[in-house]
Protein backbone atom coordinates (compact mmCIF):
# COMPACT_ATOMS: atom_id res chain seq x y z
CA UNK A 1 0.00 0.00 0.00
CA UNK A 2 1.34 3.41 -0.90
CA UNK A 3 -0.82 5.53 1.39
CA UNK A 4 0.78 5.44 4.82
CA UNK A 5 -1.31 6.83 7.67
CA UNK A 6 0.47 9.51 9.68
CA UNK A 7 -0.60 11.97 12.39
CA UNK A 8 -0.98 14.70 9.76
CA UNK A 9 -3.81 12.85 7.99
CA UNK A 10 -6.98 14.88 8.37
CA UNK A 11 -10.11 12.94 9.42
CA UNK A 12 -11.60 13.29 5.91
CA UNK A 13 -8.41 11.94 4.29
CA UNK A 14 -8.29 9.02 6.70
CA UNK A 15 -11.95 8.20 6.01
CA UNK A 16 -11.27 8.40 2.26
CA UNK A 17 -8.39 5.92 2.65
CA UNK A 18 -10.60 3.53 4.66
CA UNK A 19 -13.40 3.76 2.08
CA UNK A 20 -10.97 2.93 -0.71
CA UNK A 21 -9.39 -0.02 1.06
CA UNK A 22 -12.80 -1.34 2.14
CA UNK A 23 -13.93 -1.17 -1.46
CA UNK A 24 -10.95 -3.30 -2.49
CA UNK A 25 -11.81 -5.71 0.35
CA UNK A 26 -15.46 -6.00 -0.74
CA UNK A 27 -14.33 -6.83 -4.27
CA UNK A 28 -11.77 -9.39 -3.06
CA UNK A 29 -14.23 -11.04 -0.66
CA UNK A 30 -16.89 -11.42 -3.38
CA UNK A 31 -14.24 -12.90 -5.67
CA UNK A 32 -13.05 -15.34 -2.98
CA UNK A 33 -16.66 -16.48 -2.35
CA UNK A 34 -16.74 -17.67 -5.97
CA UNK A 35 -13.06 -18.76 -6.19
CA UNK A 36 -12.05 -19.83 -2.66
CA UNK A 37 -8.99 -21.76 -3.93
CA UNK A 38 -7.38 -18.75 -5.63
CA UNK A 39 -4.11 -18.24 -3.69
CA UNK A 40 -3.34 -14.90 -5.33
CA UNK A 41 -6.70 -13.48 -4.19
CA UNK A 42 -6.15 -14.82 -0.66
CA UNK A 43 -2.70 -13.20 -0.43
CA UNK A 44 -4.19 -9.92 -1.70
CA UNK A 45 -7.00 -10.16 0.87
CA UNK A 46 -4.49 -10.46 3.73
CA UNK A 47 -2.44 -7.55 2.44
CA UNK A 48 -5.57 -5.38 2.35
CA UNK A 49 -6.76 -6.56 5.74
CA UNK A 50 -3.45 -5.69 7.46
CA UNK A 51 -3.61 -2.16 6.05
CA UNK A 52 -7.32 -1.83 6.88
CA UNK A 53 -6.73 -2.81 10.51
CA UNK A 54 -3.98 -0.18 10.79
CA UNK A 55 -6.07 2.59 9.22
CA UNK A 56 -9.15 1.77 11.32
CA UNK A 57 -7.06 1.85 14.52
CA UNK A 58 -5.69 5.26 13.59
CA UNK A 59 -9.17 6.56 12.69
CA UNK A 60 -10.75 5.31 15.91
CA UNK A 61 -7.89 6.72 18.02
CA UNK A 62 -7.89 10.19 16.40
CA UNK A 63 -11.39 10.75 14.98
CA UNK A 64 -14.06 8.53 16.50
CA UNK A 65 -15.56 5.06 16.59
CA UNK A 66 -16.45 3.27 13.33
CA UNK A 67 -18.66 0.81 15.22
CA UNK A 68 -20.59 1.22 18.47
CA UNK A 69 -18.29 -1.19 20.31
CA UNK A 70 -15.25 0.89 19.30
CA UNK A 71 -16.11 3.76 21.63
CA UNK A 72 -12.75 4.12 23.42
CA UNK A 73 -13.62 6.84 25.90
CA UNK A 74 -14.55 5.87 29.46
CA UNK A 75 -15.53 9.50 30.14
CA UNK A 76 -18.14 10.08 27.43
CA UNK A 77 -20.33 8.43 24.79
CA UNK A 78 -18.82 9.41 21.43
CA UNK A 79 -20.90 7.18 19.11
CA UNK A 80 -23.55 9.85 18.45
CA UNK A 81 -21.39 12.99 18.56
CA UNK A 82 -20.08 13.30 14.98
CA UNK A 83 -22.30 13.95 11.92
CA UNK A 84 -23.94 10.74 10.67
CA UNK A 85 -22.66 9.34 7.34
CA UNK A 86 -25.68 10.52 5.32
CA UNK A 87 -25.13 14.17 6.34
CA UNK A 88 -23.19 16.38 3.92
CA UNK A 89 -20.91 17.41 6.82
CA UNK A 90 -19.69 13.81 7.24
CA UNK A 91 -18.60 13.68 3.57
CA UNK A 92 -16.55 16.88 3.25
Amino acid sequence: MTNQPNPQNRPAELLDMIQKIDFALVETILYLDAYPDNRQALVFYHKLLTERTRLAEQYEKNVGPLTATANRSTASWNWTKAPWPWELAANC
Partner: protein
Amino acid sequence: MWIYERKLQYPVRIRRSNPRLASVIISQLGGPDGELGASMRYLNQRYSMPNRNIAGILTDVGTEELAHLEIVGAILHQLTANLSEEEIAKSFFAAYFTDHTVGVYPQGADGTPFNARAFAVKGDVFADLNEDLAAEQKARVTYDNLLRLIDDPDVADPIRFLREREVVHYQRFGDALRIAQDNADCKNFYAINPAFDPRRKG
Protein backbone atom coordinates in the same frame (compact mmCIF):
# COMPACT_ATOMS: atom_id res chain seq x y z
CA MET B 1 -26.33 -10.50 12.56
CA TRP B 2 -25.07 -7.17 11.31
CA ILE B 3 -22.89 -4.43 12.79
CA TYR B 4 -23.25 -0.86 11.59
CA GLU B 5 -20.15 0.96 10.36
CA ARG B 6 -20.32 4.71 10.65
CA LYS B 7 -19.39 5.53 7.05
CA LEU B 8 -20.90 5.37 3.58
CA GLN B 9 -19.46 2.81 1.17
CA TYR B 10 -18.96 5.69 -1.29
CA PRO B 11 -19.08 9.40 -0.38
CA VAL B 12 -22.15 11.54 -1.18
CA ARG B 13 -21.44 15.28 -1.46
CA ILE B 14 -24.45 17.10 -2.92
CA ARG B 15 -24.29 20.85 -2.45
CA ARG B 16 -27.41 21.90 -4.40
CA SER B 17 -30.99 20.90 -3.52
CA ASN B 18 -32.93 19.40 -6.40
CA PRO B 19 -36.49 18.14 -5.79
CA ARG B 20 -36.86 16.97 -9.41
CA LEU B 21 -33.93 14.56 -9.09
CA ALA B 22 -35.13 13.31 -5.67
CA SER B 23 -38.50 12.43 -7.29
CA VAL B 24 -36.87 10.04 -9.76
CA ILE B 25 -33.85 8.72 -7.79
CA ILE B 26 -36.26 7.50 -5.08
CA SER B 27 -37.02 4.55 -7.37
CA GLN B 28 -33.64 3.06 -6.47
CA LEU B 29 -34.70 3.13 -2.82
CA GLY B 30 -38.17 1.58 -3.03
CA GLY B 31 -38.93 1.00 -6.71
CA PRO B 32 -39.29 -2.39 -8.47
CA ASP B 33 -35.50 -2.70 -9.08
CA GLY B 34 -34.28 -0.67 -6.11
CA GLU B 35 -31.75 -1.43 -3.38
CA LEU B 36 -34.33 -2.35 -0.72
CA GLY B 37 -35.68 -5.14 -2.92
CA ALA B 38 -32.15 -6.23 -3.87
CA SER B 39 -30.84 -6.52 -0.29
CA MET B 40 -33.85 -8.43 1.03
CA ARG B 41 -34.03 -10.67 -2.05
CA TYR B 42 -30.48 -11.98 -1.62
CA LEU B 43 -30.51 -12.15 2.17
CA ASN B 44 -33.76 -14.15 2.15
CA GLN B 45 -32.70 -16.45 -0.69
CA ARG B 46 -29.73 -17.68 1.38
CA TYR B 47 -31.68 -20.09 3.59
CA SER B 48 -32.69 -22.46 0.79
CA MET B 49 -29.34 -22.23 -1.01
CA PRO B 50 -27.61 -25.62 -0.51
CA ASN B 51 -24.18 -24.55 -1.84
CA ARG B 52 -22.10 -22.74 0.81
CA ASN B 53 -20.09 -20.68 -1.68
CA ILE B 54 -23.27 -19.39 -3.32
CA ALA B 55 -24.81 -18.72 0.11
CA GLY B 56 -21.64 -16.67 0.77
CA ILE B 57 -22.15 -14.63 -2.40
CA LEU B 58 -25.79 -14.00 -1.42
CA THR B 59 -24.77 -12.95 2.10
CA ASP B 60 -22.00 -10.60 0.98
CA VAL B 61 -23.83 -9.09 -2.01
CA GLY B 62 -26.99 -8.72 0.13
CA THR B 63 -24.96 -6.92 2.80
CA GLU B 64 -23.40 -4.62 0.20
CA GLU B 65 -26.90 -3.80 -1.07
CA LEU B 66 -27.75 -2.51 2.42
CA ALA B 67 -24.80 -0.11 2.03
CA HIS B 68 -26.23 0.93 -1.36
CA LEU B 69 -29.65 1.50 0.21
CA GLU B 70 -27.90 3.89 2.60
CA ILE B 71 -26.11 5.69 -0.26
CA VAL B 72 -29.44 6.24 -2.07
CA GLY B 73 -30.96 7.44 1.24
CA ALA B 74 -28.06 9.88 1.67
CA ILE B 75 -28.54 11.18 -1.90
CA LEU B 76 -32.28 11.74 -1.27
CA HIS B 77 -31.61 13.37 2.10
CA GLN B 78 -29.01 15.78 0.70
CA LEU B 79 -31.13 16.60 -2.38
CA THR B 80 -34.03 17.67 -0.14
CA ALA B 81 -32.24 18.93 3.00
CA ASN B 82 -32.49 22.66 2.29
CA LEU B 83 -35.55 22.97 0.05
CA SER B 84 -37.64 26.11 0.30
CA GLU B 85 -41.45 25.94 0.32
CA GLU B 86 -41.40 27.78 -3.00
CA GLU B 87 -39.09 25.20 -4.62
CA ILE B 88 -41.34 22.39 -3.37
CA ALA B 89 -44.57 24.06 -4.48
CA LYS B 90 -43.47 24.43 -8.09
CA SER B 91 -41.98 20.91 -8.46
CA PHE B 92 -43.31 17.40 -8.95
CA PHE B 93 -41.89 16.70 -5.47
CA ALA B 94 -44.92 18.53 -3.97
CA ALA B 95 -47.00 15.31 -4.14
CA TYR B 96 -44.37 13.35 -2.18
CA PHE B 97 -43.88 16.22 0.27
CA THR B 98 -47.61 16.17 1.06
CA ASP B 99 -47.38 12.61 2.40
CA HIS B 100 -43.79 12.32 3.68
CA THR B 101 -42.41 15.87 4.11
CA VAL B 102 -38.65 15.38 3.48
CA GLY B 103 -38.53 11.95 5.14
CA VAL B 104 -37.04 9.10 3.13
CA TYR B 105 -39.85 6.68 2.29
CA PRO B 106 -39.43 3.64 -0.02
CA GLN B 107 -41.50 4.13 -3.15
CA GLY B 108 -41.07 4.00 -6.91
CA ALA B 109 -40.60 7.03 -9.16
CA ASP B 110 -44.31 6.78 -10.04
CA GLY B 111 -45.30 7.01 -6.34
CA THR B 112 -46.15 3.31 -5.80
CA PRO B 113 -45.13 2.30 -2.26
CA PHE B 114 -42.50 -0.47 -2.02
CA ASN B 115 -43.94 -3.83 -3.04
CA ALA B 116 -42.56 -6.98 -1.34
CA ARG B 117 -42.93 -8.85 -4.66
CA ALA B 118 -39.50 -7.38 -5.45
CA PHE B 119 -38.02 -9.87 -2.93
CA ALA B 120 -38.72 -12.74 -5.35
CA VAL B 121 -37.65 -15.82 -3.35
CA LYS B 122 -38.64 -19.04 -5.13
CA GLY B 123 -36.61 -21.47 -3.00
CA ASP B 124 -35.06 -23.04 -6.08
CA VAL B 125 -31.34 -22.66 -6.86
CA PHE B 126 -31.67 -22.03 -10.58
CA ALA B 127 -34.88 -19.98 -10.45
CA ASP B 128 -33.40 -17.72 -7.75
CA LEU B 129 -30.00 -17.21 -9.40
CA ASN B 130 -31.59 -16.40 -12.77
CA GLU B 131 -33.85 -13.94 -10.93
CA ASP B 132 -30.72 -12.34 -9.42
CA LEU B 133 -28.93 -12.03 -12.77
CA ALA B 134 -32.00 -10.31 -14.25
CA ALA B 135 -32.37 -8.10 -11.16
CA GLU B 136 -28.80 -6.79 -11.47
CA GLN B 137 -29.33 -5.94 -15.14
CA LYS B 138 -32.67 -4.23 -14.41
CA ALA B 139 -31.06 -2.13 -11.67
CA ARG B 140 -28.20 -1.26 -14.06
CA VAL B 141 -30.73 -0.09 -16.69
CA THR B 142 -32.51 2.02 -14.06
CA TYR B 143 -29.21 3.72 -13.14
CA ASP B 144 -28.50 4.28 -16.86
CA ASN B 145 -31.94 5.90 -17.20
CA LEU B 146 -31.30 8.07 -14.14
CA LEU B 147 -27.93 9.19 -15.53
CA ARG B 148 -29.76 10.50 -18.60
CA LEU B 149 -31.91 12.66 -16.29
CA ILE B 150 -29.17 13.90 -13.93
CA ASP B 151 -27.58 17.28 -14.72
CA ASP B 152 -25.59 17.71 -11.49
CA PRO B 153 -22.11 16.06 -11.36
CA ASP B 154 -22.35 15.82 -7.53
CA VAL B 155 -25.36 13.53 -8.00
CA ALA B 156 -24.07 11.62 -11.05
CA ASP B 157 -20.86 10.60 -9.22
CA PRO B 158 -22.37 8.24 -6.58
CA ILE B 159 -25.02 7.06 -9.09
CA ARG B 160 -22.19 5.96 -11.43
CA PHE B 161 -20.58 4.05 -8.55
CA LEU B 162 -23.88 2.26 -7.84
CA ARG B 163 -24.30 1.45 -11.54
CA GLU B 164 -20.84 -0.14 -11.66
CA ARG B 165 -21.67 -2.34 -8.68
CA GLU B 166 -24.67 -3.78 -10.56
CA VAL B 167 -22.27 -4.81 -13.34
CA VAL B 168 -19.89 -6.51 -10.84
CA HIS B 169 -22.72 -8.27 -8.98
CA TYR B 170 -23.99 -9.60 -12.31
CA GLN B 171 -20.53 -11.14 -12.83
CA ARG B 172 -20.53 -12.75 -9.37
CA PHE B 173 -24.05 -14.16 -9.84
CA GLY B 174 -22.83 -15.51 -13.19
CA ASP B 175 -20.08 -17.32 -11.23
CA ALA B 176 -22.74 -18.56 -8.78
CA LEU B 177 -24.89 -19.99 -11.59
CA ARG B 178 -21.86 -21.74 -13.08
CA ILE B 179 -20.91 -23.20 -9.66
CA ALA B 180 -24.52 -24.43 -9.24
CA GLN B 181 -24.52 -26.06 -12.67
CA ASP B 182 -21.08 -27.65 -12.13
CA ASN B 183 -22.28 -29.16 -8.86
CA ALA B 184 -25.72 -30.32 -10.02
CA ASP B 185 -26.38 -34.02 -10.55
CA CYS B 186 -25.28 -34.69 -14.15
CA LYS B 187 -28.56 -36.53 -14.73
CA ASN B 188 -30.44 -33.36 -13.76
CA PHE B 189 -29.89 -31.93 -17.24
CA TYR B 190 -32.78 -29.49 -17.03
CA ALA B 191 -31.62 -28.01 -13.69
CA ILE B 192 -34.81 -28.65 -11.78
CA ASN B 193 -35.11 -27.86 -8.06
CA PRO B 194 -31.89 -29.34 -6.61
CA ALA B 195 -32.54 -27.51 -3.32
CA PHE B 196 -35.70 -29.45 -2.44
CA ASP B 197 -35.89 -32.74 -4.29
CA PRO B 198 -32.91 -34.59 -2.69
CA ARG B 199 -34.49 -34.06 0.72
CA ARG B 200 -37.79 -35.52 -0.45
CA LYS B 201 -36.06 -38.69 -1.66
CA GLY B 202 -34.41 -39.21 1.75
